[in-house]
């Protein structure tokens, strides 16, 4: 294990295997990204893509790369990283591999917020804000409902399933209130889609990541690791349990909400990415950074699949993550049998 000591008493612990996984994941995501930018109705060779990124290339290539495909791709990477990180924080805090924001209903809450705006006929800035507000409100509701002792174990997850069921009903109803054109837009959004995403969608997520990723990694990761041993042990070791939990949960809810505002409630990514990260690094603890990297790579891959899997028809990326992620969760549950839980 390598420990980086930073000024201000902060330290960053790095495991070699986690480091390798992180680097490999990053390289994979970047390679996928170069291929993804080149792929489409107007194919550009990887060399051409790199030339454009270096500042050269033909004007047509430049336009397609920097105005059309790059924003979508950056949105995918940022949303994936945000969801992966948020999922890792949630699973660590709930001490439950199923305690991810989509199972708990935070993403459904963000969808509710956005649908209200669609029905009221608001613009996309209002939509993003309302999605974030809906996610945060749901997070607060969960925290209140789970009670003081309820954050760990299956109870919070069951509360979340109940909240999700209610919100699904509300979302479906809101969908019937909108005029057909808006309903089509909302149905696409609620599934989770990266179609036509521009820099205006990518920048808020990047901004949130830029602030919250270091904050969570540096300030909260050690405390989160201790919290996984149980509240009492952590408190005994001098962790301000309540403050850490509220801060970490708040950051994660914000990340989910901002991600949902940009790409819609992309399902199951926040659940799957930390699992895969943990399997790859084989490290205990929250695996925060690897989860973010795996999340980014996963969403990018899913989006490519969504764009090119069915010839002549673009699927929204949420369909891919929903179907694959639901299957993965089912498989996880089936494999968990006779195991720890």
């Amino acid at each position: 294990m390598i420990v980086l000591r930073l000024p201000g008493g902060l330290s960053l612990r790095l495991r070699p295997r986690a480091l390798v996984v992180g680097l490999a994941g990053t390289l994979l995501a970047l390679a996928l990204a170069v291929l993804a930018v080149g792929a489409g109705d107007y194919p550009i060779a990887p060399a051409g893509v790199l030339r454009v990124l270096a500042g050269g290339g033909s004007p047509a290539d430049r336009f397609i790369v920097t105005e059309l495909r790059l924003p979508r791709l950056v949105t995918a990477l940022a949303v994936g990283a945000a969801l992966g990180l948020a999922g890792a924080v949630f699973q660590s805090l709930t001490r439950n591999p199923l305690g991810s924001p989509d199972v708990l209903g935070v993403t459904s809450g963000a969808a509710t917020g956005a649908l209200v705006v669609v029905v009221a006929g608001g613009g996309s800035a209002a939509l993003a804000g309302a999605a974030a507000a809906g996610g945060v409100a749901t997070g607060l509701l969960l925290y209140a409902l789970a009670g003081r002792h309820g954050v760990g174990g299956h109870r919070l997850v069951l509360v979340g399933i109940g909240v999700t069921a209610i919100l699904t009903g509300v979302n479906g109803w809101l969908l019937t209130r909108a005029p057909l054109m808006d309903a089509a837009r909302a149905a696409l959004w609620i599934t989770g889609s990266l179609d036509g995403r521009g820099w205006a969608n990518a920048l808020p997520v990047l901004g949130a990541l830029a602030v919250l990723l270091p904050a969570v990694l540096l300030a909260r990761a050690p405390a989160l690791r201790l919290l996984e041993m149980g509240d009492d042990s952590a408190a005994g070791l001098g962790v301000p349990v309540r403050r850490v939990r509220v801060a970490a949960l708040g950051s994660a809810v914000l990340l989910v909400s901002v991600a949902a505002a940009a790409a819609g409630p992309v399902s199951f990514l926040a659940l799957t990415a930390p699992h895969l990260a943990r399997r790859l690094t084989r490290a205990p603890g929250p695996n925060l950074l690897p989860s973010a990297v795996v999340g980014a790579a996963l969403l990018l891959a899913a989006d490519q699949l969504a764009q090119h899997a069915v010839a002549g028809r673009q699927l929204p990326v949420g369909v891919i993550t929903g179907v694959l992620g639901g299957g993965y969760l089912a498989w996880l549950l089936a494999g968990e049998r006779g195991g720890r839980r």
Partner: protein
Amino acid sequence: MLLLAAVAVLSLALGAKPLSLADVWHGLTDPASPEYAVVHQGRLPRTLLGLAAGAALGVAGAAMQTLTRNPLADPGLLGINAGASAAVATATVLLGVADLDRQVWYALLGAAAVTVAVHAIAGGRQATPARLALAGAALNAALYSYVSAMMLVDSTSLERMRFWTVGSLAGARTDTVPSLLPFVLAGLVIALLVTRPLAALALGDDSARALGARPGLVRGAVVVAVTLLCGAATAACGPIVFVGLLAPHLVRALTGPDPRRLLPWCAVFAPVLLLTADVAGRLLGRPGELQVGLVTAVLGGPLFLHLVRRGRVGRL
């Protein structure tokens, strides 16, 4: 029973155009009266559908709760309605199946597949309530992603499906209930026939065998009954959550947990619940209406949360 009759009359009388009791009577019996069309085309099929679907969901929920000893069991939460929805969506969008007579078969297929899958994923006989609920949630999410993909294929299917996926009785026509009834009746008869061995099964497999019941056969019969009931109800009204959760819990407070009393009373009380929710949705949502699926979600959700918070999970 009296309550059921009262709610049925209310469901006939209330709506966008409220009718007096005398008007309802004329509308039912006198073809020449101005209310005849309103009652026979709109409210009567809707009320009958509410009775059939309510009984179906209530009995299905009660049978599942008893069989799995899981107080959280609900056809909606365990993904069975979602399975039926996914199959109906596929049939509607890809195969162009628009009439209920044929849709109901797809719904049954989807419901059956998910019933088996959820049980298998949750660990078969070792399944705990929490694991069943989680397996249901996983399949729910995956299947609804698929359903929304189907809705996005073109705008006519979106227009049709977005009202259907909320869960509503408003689409009832005169031929809805007749095409549904054989399935619901078959499911009800099977469920009510196995109540005695089901009660024995609650004591554990060995005691049940000693009492002359055959556990495997009973489980199979309940699965068939739940599939018939949920598939038919979902095909006609769309996925309605929480009725199958709520009704048995309220009835159990009066009858106790014995399925021989619980199931028949659920068949009476669940329609009362569903019709009340439907009437409430019509009154609250004026000039339009709130779909009944939303009303049941908003009513049933808090009960579910209450059960979880009270720690009743796993005790039944």
